[in-house]
């Protein structure tokens, strides 16, 4: 169980109202995509779910309990950048969560405990397709590999809630498609609720069970400071996607990417996206 209840949440920075009166209930094991124009407060909202910041008004409950006031191991996160530690190898990055939880003062594991943790980490690394790169440092990985590593790193904690802030925004479309497939599989297989911020409509509709849009209702320049954004659309994907159950209606759109050749992609298709 990992239900998130956001009740009448406001967020202000000094005089500027960023979010106003946001209420939302995210069911356990849901996959919510958060979309909206740039600067409307999506990241701020995610930071509040993470516990990194506190709402000015309103409450956030996780499984009926008030959210702890700082980030903790029950909520994992992947940011667009800086999500992995540059001074640790791939294995070290994934292992870190285990080490921090298990060894209070040394924050290092030894002996059998370490071997077990390494086994687990290797399995996860393999799952995100990074086998063979265990000894590499992030600077030696491509952007896509780094984001996959960040995912593995978060997943080893088996968080109740996984929060993603534009995790795939910086990736090439090809790589992005691959990661989408991976994301879907992981969501099906693990027990977590996912909230993902994205700019990419297509990504939102490809992955999520529900797409929530934030927007400022009044957005004239002189009003910008005085009115915050709130939920303007809340769309449940149909046919419904259910964690653990492959959708029978909609085939995975992010199938294997086509290889270079004479076949052109459908010229009639049109990319969708919110102008940020």
């Amino acid at each position: 169980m990992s239900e998130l209840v956001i009740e009448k949440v406001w967020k202000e920075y000094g005089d500027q109202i960023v979010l106003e009166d946001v209420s939302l209930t995210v069911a356990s094991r849901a996959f919510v995509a958060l979309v909206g124009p740039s600067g409307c407060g999506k990241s701020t909202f995610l930071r509040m779910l993470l516990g990194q910041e506190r709402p000015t008004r309103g409450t956030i409950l996780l499984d009926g309990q008030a959210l702890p006031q700082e980030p903790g191991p029950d909520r994992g996160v992947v940011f667009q950048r800086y999500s992995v530690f540059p001074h640790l190898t791939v294995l070290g990055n994934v292992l870190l969560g285990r080490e921090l939880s298990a060894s209070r003062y040394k924050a290092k594991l030894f002996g059998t405990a370490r071997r077990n943790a390494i086994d687990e980490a290797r399995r996860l690394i393999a799952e995100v397709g990074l086998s063979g790169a265990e000894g590499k440092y992030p600077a030696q990985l491509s952007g896509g590999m780094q984001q996959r590593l960040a995912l593995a790193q978060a997943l080893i904690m088996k968080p109740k809630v996984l929060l993603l802030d534009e995790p795939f925004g910086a990736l090439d479309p090809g790589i992005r498609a691959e990661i989408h497939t991976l994301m879907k599989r992981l969501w099906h297989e693990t027990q977590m609720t996912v909230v993902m911020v994205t700019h990419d409509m297509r990504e939102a509709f490809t992955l999520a069970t529900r797409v929530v849009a934030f927007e400022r209702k009044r957005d004239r320049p002189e009003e910008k400071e005085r009115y915050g954004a709130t939920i303007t659309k809340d769309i449940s994907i149909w046919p419904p996607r259910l964690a653990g159950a492959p959708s029978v209606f909609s085939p995975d759109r992010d199938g294997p990417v086509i290889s270079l050749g004479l076949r052109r992609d459908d010229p009639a298709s049109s990319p969708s996206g919110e102008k940020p």
Partner: protein
Amino acid sequence: MRWINTRPSRGAQLALTLLPFVLLIVAYTVGSAARLAENANDKLLPGFAGFADAIDRFAFVADPRTGQYLLWSDTGASLIRLFAGLGISTITALVIGMLIGMLPYLRALLSPFVAVISMVPPLALLPILFIAMGLGEASKIALIVIGVAPTMIRDLALKALELPREQIVKAETLGGSSWQIGLRVVLPQILPRLITCLRLQLGPAWLFLIAAEAISSDSGLGYRIFLVRRYLSMDIIFPYVVWITLLAVIMNYILDRIRIAVFPWSELEKQA
């Protein structure tokens, strides 16, 4: 072709690198010869024979008074002080700098204070220092620490602060406590910077060492330079200065090698 696009060949590169050093030596030789022609006893710019003689006396002939080879005993004395001073500065800077960078309370407490302290000219406070620390090695080492540590603390605090907030948050979601985050996330990332910072402070550290040795000491490279300065014995001063420079250049190089060897990722990051 534009000048900015012209590149010397390997050979030309080497020749160009050596050129200023050669020119310096030639200029010195000419100047020295001119002065010596005028006054054979001139002490300001001794000839190379004078240097050879002085080096021989200091490096390879035992001092009859103490039985020591002065250049080496001076070097030993100075290096011990230098390493002690730099060692203490490094550890202080690491601990305080990291804490300032990590803990907002400590930052509020110490950051402005350290900034002001780093502007105090330490040489002007020497008497106080000597009275507080005595005249032994302690005060010389302390002068190096006072001269060098505030800058290092500021630099490291800045570096710790510059770590992307995302990394700290990520570490928290991995269950890290303040201590664990310091130990496993912040510390390893500022260590390479610490080494770079140490390299930058080598020059100032030598300066303070020489200043301290000039006042009260009975051995050390700075002591010797100031002792013979009364007699304008440039035949000793020049080799000592060259030797100090050489030591500094070597330390600088070794520290960088150590950084690359111990923290390979820091080099990868740089190249990326």
